[in-house]
């Protein structure tokens, strides 16, 4: 797999070509994530498959600025992965675009290797440590405030899970973000509607989620989180809006997408596939 250009927005390709490219990438990321799970069954596969298309758009659309050779450049957009466990799908992307070597993937969870089953800050491309849920948005608010005070016109992106919205710290940050007019803050909720022990509707019931964000004075949109074109268009629209409000995309997704026996299994978060099942699924996808 060829490494991407250092700034993906340098791409000079038509919109149609870009969408085709991203769809191909998403398929590749899905397979690589499954492959990683085969090597490290402790990885959270189900929650790492609901955000494949979201992460693919973030890294391959050119909308988010990053430079794998200068991961802390002031010119980068900041990406906070708040749902740490559910971002194993970001490993192949980070390797592909050049944050670390592709050879690191096959070493996942081995002793003294770079990649653990929950990402940490030693991995280039991860800004913060997020093995514990509900922290990312508040930290992102601090970064967004800092960028405004420093006069740096870059954005802070946050990927969080819907289950994280059970946590009070998230709502403390949601209040602060709109009060302080953080229109450089863009949150994508991977709304796979499940947490570890079942469906959110049976646990706390987050709905109506968009109305809640709206009441907190956020720009919001609800989309199909597996539709690459829709993610791209919506994000692009919000990035160009900048009306003094933070923005949220509630991306409706399916947990364990593509693993048919898990898609309606409310305990899929904690399940692992056997190596032969991984092999079979990868073969089917070819």
């Amino acid at each position, binding site marked *: 797999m060829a490494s991407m250009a250092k700034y993906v927005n340098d791409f000079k390709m038509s919109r149609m070509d870009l969408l085709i490219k991203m769809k191909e990438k998403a398929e590749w990321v899905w397979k690589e994530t499954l492959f990683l799970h085969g090597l490290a069954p402790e990885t959270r596969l189900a929650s790492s498959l609901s955000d494949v298309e979201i992460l693919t758009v973030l890294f391959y659309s050119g909308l988010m600025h990053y430079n794998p050779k200068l991961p802390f450049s002031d010119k980068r957009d900041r990406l906070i992965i708040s749902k740490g466990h559910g971002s194993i799908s970001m490993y192949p992307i980070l390797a592909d675009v050049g944050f670390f070597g592709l050879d690191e993937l096959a070493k996942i969870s081995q002793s003294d290797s770079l990649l653990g089953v929950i990402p940490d800050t030693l991995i280039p491309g991860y800004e913060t440590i997020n*093995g514990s849920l509900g922290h990312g948005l508040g930290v992102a608010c*601090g970064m967004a*405030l*800092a960028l405004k005070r420093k006069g740096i016109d870059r954005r802070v992106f946050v990927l969080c899970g819907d289950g994280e919205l059970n946590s009070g710290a998230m709502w403390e940050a949601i209040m602060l973000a709109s009060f302080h007019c953080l229109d450089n803050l863009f949150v994508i909720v991977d709304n796979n509607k499940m947490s570890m022990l079942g469906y959110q509707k049976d646990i706390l019931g987050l709905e109506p989620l968009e109305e809640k964000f709206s009441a907190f004075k956020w720009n919001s949109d609800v989309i199909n989180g597996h539709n690459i074109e829709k993610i791209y268009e919506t994000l692009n629209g919000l990035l160009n809006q900048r009306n003094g409000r933070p923005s949220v995309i509630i991306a409706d997704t399916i947990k364990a997408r593509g693993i048919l026996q898990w898609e309606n299994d409310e305990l899929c978060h904690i399940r692992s596939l056997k190596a032969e099942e991984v092999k079979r699924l990868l073969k089917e996808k070819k």
Partner: protein
Amino acid sequence: MSNVAMKAMRDALIEGVYRRMQDDRRIFFLSADMGAPVLDKLRADFRDRFINIGIAEQNLINVATGLALEGFVVYAYAIAPFVLRAYEQIRINLALSSQIRQLNVNIVGTGAGVSYDVSGPTHHCLEDLSVMRTLPNIVVCSPSDSCLAQLFVDYSIHTKKPKYIRLDGKPLPFIYNESMAPSFEKGFYELVKGDKACIVSSGYMTHMALEISKEIEDKSIGVVDIFTIKPIDEMSLFEILKSYKTVITLEEGFIGKGGLDSLVLCLLNDLQADVRVKRFGFKDEYLFKVGSRDFLHNQSGFDKKSVRDWILNECL
């Protein structure tokens, strides 16, 4: 104490931060809706770098982390016992993260020990030193006067680590002046050199230790004030303590749980000194009785008279 100059530590610290903010645009001051008269000036003059986060200590720490990741020096100000609400944010975003990334976040907790005496057990802060001491990468400070609190400002700017500083909630007399050059890197000061026994104390209790030492004549009772609980120059502290037969620890916190007493006991044990250690502090229960600070100390057996009598009976 009526004729002695008194000053609240938070006033000294905030005045110091205010002065630095005038020519250092990298400094942010966050508050979890906690105020102080001297903070009003800072709030008014630095509207872009003062933020009232609201009564939301978890977000206080998270937002402070984000600002610090972008290179700002951050002061995060709250009532000391309520800082512990954000223990997990401190653990994940400051202690863990600062092992990999540089983070200069200074958590300023006001209302150390039982300085909010009559406010009752929600406002007593008896766990913070032991809780914070368990966290790697966090500097833990407990000054005993406003001179130290003001000196902390320069230290906090050039020491680019997360820190917790507990400040007394009441104005106290000065112990130090700048010519004494107390060092936060060293972490302690031998205020009185004695020969029979030595009181090791921190914060408010150092004032009591000094009074006891003064009342027992011929300077036989030494006093060591510890103001950086972690990290501390252990070897230098050991050199002082090993020469005494008895060391008395005196703290406004729970004893036997990892606080000041544990620090001293571990040090003397690890370096194998033949020193008896007597520990004074709060036992394993909360204080529901209403009363002044002296009353609360008395109820727990470490008012000034009780400590002095123990020393007179056991050490002289």
